[in-house]
């Protein structure tokens, strides 16, 4: 287990390194206005060049990269240029990460409980009414643009339930709808996959053997099928936090939640290159960490992995 974890960790680090490099190089292609902010229009070509040079953006690319690695290693994400000029990005993020994390985790938790339950119910009543209702829900979530139903929920459900429209940190009732809205998509995908894996497992030989030895179907469900079906889900569990990104972009914008999703849209619209860069790195790192944790989690659940699974494509 330890050896496997270390191997995976090393692998993740390599991937992370490559991603950081790729992202950094990609972002050199970003519009250069993004480095000046409001001053851009006031400056002439020579002044702009001077500033870019002073920022090190005219250095040879490998020098830039080295510098960049250095600052990343020392935990320095740079400073914002436009969004909040001169403010260290780390400081901007520090205030926002807790919100994103809170809503992301809550959403994952809700969708996990709701989605897995729904998936199990669907698998158990395959082709019957619950299955069809569940499928209807999954298709609906995937078909109707999130931008539309999120807004709908915000405007109408708040009215019906008499909940506040906007998020207020000190009013827990204003936390409910955003968290639930954010979990809708995850619920659908968990339900879909859980159903699929359950059905797969139910058709396996060991279930027949378990039946043949006289185990009750409830016991089979609990002791065998559920656990085995959950293993492939476990792998993706940590990284599903990431799938709340697009959800969080909508939700945070709609409910005035000061999280990172809203920030991303903001800095993109304002072309604050350094913050965009930092956010992309953070999200990518979360992605890698998520997959790493997922693999470790799966290894915990599935004894085969340590020995059999080689790295590579997941």
């Amino acid at each position, binding site marked *: 287990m330890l050896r496997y974890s270390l191997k995976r960790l090393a692998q993740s680090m390599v*991937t*992370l390194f490559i991603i950081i490099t790729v992202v950094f190089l990609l972002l050199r292609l970003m519009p250069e206005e993004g480095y000046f902010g409001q001053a851009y229009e006031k400056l002439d070509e020579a002044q702009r060049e001077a500033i870019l040079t002073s920022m090190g953006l005219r250095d040879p690319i490998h020098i830039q990269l080295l510098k960049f690695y250095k600052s990343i290693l020392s935990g320095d994400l740079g400073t914002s240029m436009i969004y909040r000029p001169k403010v260290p990005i780390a400081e901007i993020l520090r205030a926002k990460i807790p919100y994103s994390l809170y809503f992301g985790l809550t959403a994952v938790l809700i969708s996990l409980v709701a989605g897995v339950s729904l998936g199990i119910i669907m698998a158990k009543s395959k082709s019957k009414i619950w299955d069809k209702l569940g499928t209807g829900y999954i298709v609906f979530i995937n*078909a109707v643009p999130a*931008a539309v139903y999120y*807004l709908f929920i915000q405007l109408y459900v708040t009215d019906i339930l008499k909940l506040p429209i906007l998020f207020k940190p000190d009013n827990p009732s204003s936390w409910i709808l955003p968290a639930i809205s954010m979990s809708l998509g995850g619920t659908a995908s968990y339900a879909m996959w859980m159903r699929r894996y359950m059905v797969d497992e139910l058709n396996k030989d060991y279930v027949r053997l378990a039946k043949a030895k006289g185990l009750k179907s409830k016991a089979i469900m609990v002791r065998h099928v559920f656990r085995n079906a959950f293993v492939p889900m476990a792998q993706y569990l940590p990284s599903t936090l990431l799938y709340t990104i697009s959800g969080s972009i*909508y939700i945070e914008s709609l409910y005035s939640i000061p999280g990172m999703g809203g920030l991303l849209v903001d800095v*993109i619209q304002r072309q604050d290159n350094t913050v965009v860069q930092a956010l*992309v790195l953070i999200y990518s790192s979360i992605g890698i960490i998520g997959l790493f944790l997922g693999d470790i989690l799966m290894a915990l659940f599935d004894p085969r992995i340590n020995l059999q699974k080689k790295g590579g494509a997941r």
Partner: protein
Amino acid sequence: MGNKKINQLADGITEELTEELFEFAEFDEEEAQRAGYSNYSYWRSTWQVFIQNRVALFCLILVSLLVVFTIIQPYLPNQKLPTKIYIDEKTNMQLRNHPPDSEFWFGTNSIGQDLWSRIWSGTRTSLFIGLVVAIWEAVAGIAIGSLWGYVRVLDRPITEIYNVLDNIPVTIVLILMTYILRPSLSTIIMAMCITGWLGMARFVRNLIVIIRDREYNLASRCLGTPTRRIITRNLLPYLVSVIMLRMALAIPAAIGYEVFLTYIGLGLPVSIPSLGNLINEGRALMMVPSLRYQLIFPAVVLSVITISFYVMGNAFADAADPRNHV
């Protein structure tokens, strides 16, 4: 033909078994085969299974009609231009927010453009994006996936590339690409294409790894069949179901991303009608009952397309899976 005669005989007999029946019958080898699998054809069987799914069949017809309609719509009589602004005769001003009637079937938008033709024009744009991305996904995904899975030397490098791309969330890649390249139709398509092939390639690769060492492929290789031929003849047919499913899902996904990008301001310019733009414009009117039609019509069209492709894709995947054939 021998059997035919016997059948006629059989109609006549009751309990009485005549001696005559205890003669040897002629042997018909074809008949022997037919008893097992009567004129089986993979595609016909796929099709038959598919059309048995009434909902899927309905969706197929619906989508076909929709696609055909979006293509021919501009050439139909009495169609309006999607970008033309209509002027109210009485006030000589734009026919703003005109509710649906016999003239403007879906009403007009806030500057007097015909929503009916805009929706179809938008559907064209969005379907085009979806289709290009889906085709790319299929072509690139299968090509890379096949090489990845089949050519052992390439396994490692492609795996690394895959890991890198897959580790950055798709949303982020999309945002980043449209950000760097600046919003336009080609940018959107390109951004989606960059990540689009990943899932398909992985799927294809995994399936190929599973089946490449099956006996019939070993046999082929022993017979000196070239790799390309083994991939196209032995492996790909097996993958058809998965490929169809993913392609069918790629179209609604691409449309979904387009809506998303439009929302965050990286979509198509508002002067180009697309479902993303129409929905985004309509969204602002959600709280205005009399104008809500401007949201509902495009949203319904979008949902119909997405749901249909979902249902169809799944039904087809089921139908194309050889294990579901009898």
